[in-house]
């Protein structure tokens, strides 16, 4: 099977001796929406840096859409679009010119690039700013400009390195919709993010990297299924004085109107509600205490497996 991304035994040791990647293997299927997660310094940015030639690998191989980045450099790059964390465009250049230049670097002449650029600038709400210098754009607009720039050559694999960092909720939701749209059109997307809610909502498959090694790699659903305990927070209709005893479940009462219940894998919420009804406790709403993926992520990367 041909993958959108195929990484084999990838190692990177920096000049100062720091071993950022210890021989990772990773495959991402074509059309996937994939999350690469890990704490700061885990090796995510090094991996992305190697994919887009900003970091020289120490050993191993990388293929983008079946093209080896060493031997089929041009074709691999042609199929790859990257949205970096930092605003790495010329701040003195006009918004539209940044996209024209990027298209040119990919061998796309201005006449062919112009309608594409118009499409992406309009779709991302930047068309009115096309003649403004990029430094005059707001943070959210700059972030969208990075996405437009990564798409101007219409890559088959799009890598986004924390694309929604520092972006307000409304804009973040807008970006999610846009990314889902282009993923539905066939573009494979790899996302790194610190917002695990984002990864859980968008990504079908997840890989967690820590200390330069892949420590989990599976579908988001399977990964979440491996979570042994989920803490639910129940908002109560009326205050209670003491923690109700529910056999087999651990409960806590942070305040008189809030009850926390730990539910292990295999246990049922129906039992919890039945017991609460028996105690005359009425629940008006309920949510998980932390994002489920976040709970799993923290337990895996801290070495504290539940």
């Amino acid at each position: 099977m041909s993958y959108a991304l195929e990484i084999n035994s990838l190692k990177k040791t920096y000049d100062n001796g720091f071993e950022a990647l210890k021989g990772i293997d990773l495959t991402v299927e074509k059309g996937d929406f994939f999350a690469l997660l890990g704490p700061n310094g885990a090796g995510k940015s090094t991996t992305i840096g190697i994919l887009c030639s900003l970091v020289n690998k120490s050993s191993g191989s990388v293929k983008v859409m079946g093209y080896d980045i060493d031997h089929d450099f041009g074709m691999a790059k042609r199929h790859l679009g990257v949205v970096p964390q930092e605003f790495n465009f010329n701040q003195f250049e006009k918004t539209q010119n940044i996209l024209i230049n990027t298209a040119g670097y990919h061998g796309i002449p201005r006449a062919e690039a112009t309608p594409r650029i118009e499409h992406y600038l309009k779709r991302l709400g930047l068309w009115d700013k096309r003649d403004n210098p990029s430094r005059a754009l707001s943070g959210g607009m700059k972030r969208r400009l990075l996405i437009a720039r990564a798409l101007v050559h219409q890559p088959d694999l799009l890598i986004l390195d924390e694309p929604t960092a520092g972006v307000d909720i409304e804009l973040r939701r807008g970006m999610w919709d846009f990314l889902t749209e282009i993923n539905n059109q066939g573009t494979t997307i790899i996302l790194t993010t610190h917002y695990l809610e984002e990864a859980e909502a968008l990504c079908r498959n997840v890989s967690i990297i820590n200390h330069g090694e892949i420590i989990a790699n599976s579908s988001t659903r399977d990964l979440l299924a491996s979570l042994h305990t989920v803490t639910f927070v129940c908002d109560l209709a009326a205050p209670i004085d003491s923690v109700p005893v529910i056999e087999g479940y651990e409960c806590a009462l942070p305040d008189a109107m809030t009850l926390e219940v730990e539910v292990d894998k295999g246990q049922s919420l129906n039992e919890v509600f039945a017991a609460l009804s028996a105690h005359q406790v009425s629940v008006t709403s309920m949510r998980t205490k932390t994002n489920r993926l976040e709970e799993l992520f923290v337990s895996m990367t801290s070495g504290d497996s539940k």
Partner: protein
Amino acid sequence: MSLANYEEKATDFGNPNWVAYQTIVRTEVRRFTRIWVQTMIPPAITMTLYFIIFGSLIGRRIGEMGGFDYMAYIVPGLIMMSVITNSYANVSSSFFGAKFGKFIEEMLVSPISNQTILLGYVTGGVARAVFVGIIVTILSLFFTHLAIHNILAVVSITLLTAVLFSLLGFINGVYAKRFDDVSIVPTFVLTPLTYLGGVFFSIDLLPDFWAGVAQLNPILYVVNAFRFGILGVSDISLGWAYGILISMTVVAYVIAVRLLANGAGVRS
């Protein structure tokens, strides 16, 4: 757009490196013309002052040099001085600026070959050198009469010099880590070498020892070869000048390409 369609369209565009090359050159030319107050005006003012002070005021007392009045004698060297400093400064500052602002990454993540990147920057440097060279030449006509002795030598030496110093500027830009690093070489190396490179005097005036030392200065060959093209006189053999210029250009090109291939200064 599906992958298959994209590949077909990419092929239809022709040679992608040619489009990329044109893009870099257009960007470079737009950069130095947009900041013309910084790039075009200073050399025009500086050279006009040289013409007035060294040519008109001091030159009258000096009389002739190499069989020409002093003003006519120094004009070729001053034009070359402009070509050297502008080609070098354009590429070193532009490439370092792209590194500093991190937008060099736009090129590094694209399919452009290293040689295309290099040629694009060098062409930008040559374009600015030629622009400024023409401006200085036009200004010199207000002070002296220039009769071109050998147009082929004038054009070829100008282009070779601009290419060589653009390449050297590129190498400087690759190694530069701070803005100071792109001004150190022009200030402490290029300017002294230019002054000692026979712009204002014939090396025949120097004692034998220092005349021998002067021949280690590559700018001496540039200035004299260009002076031959304009006036028909030179302190050194034209063949030597071409040989040294071409050799240095080839060496600088190989070094620059290798630096890019190794990712020096731009990849970790």
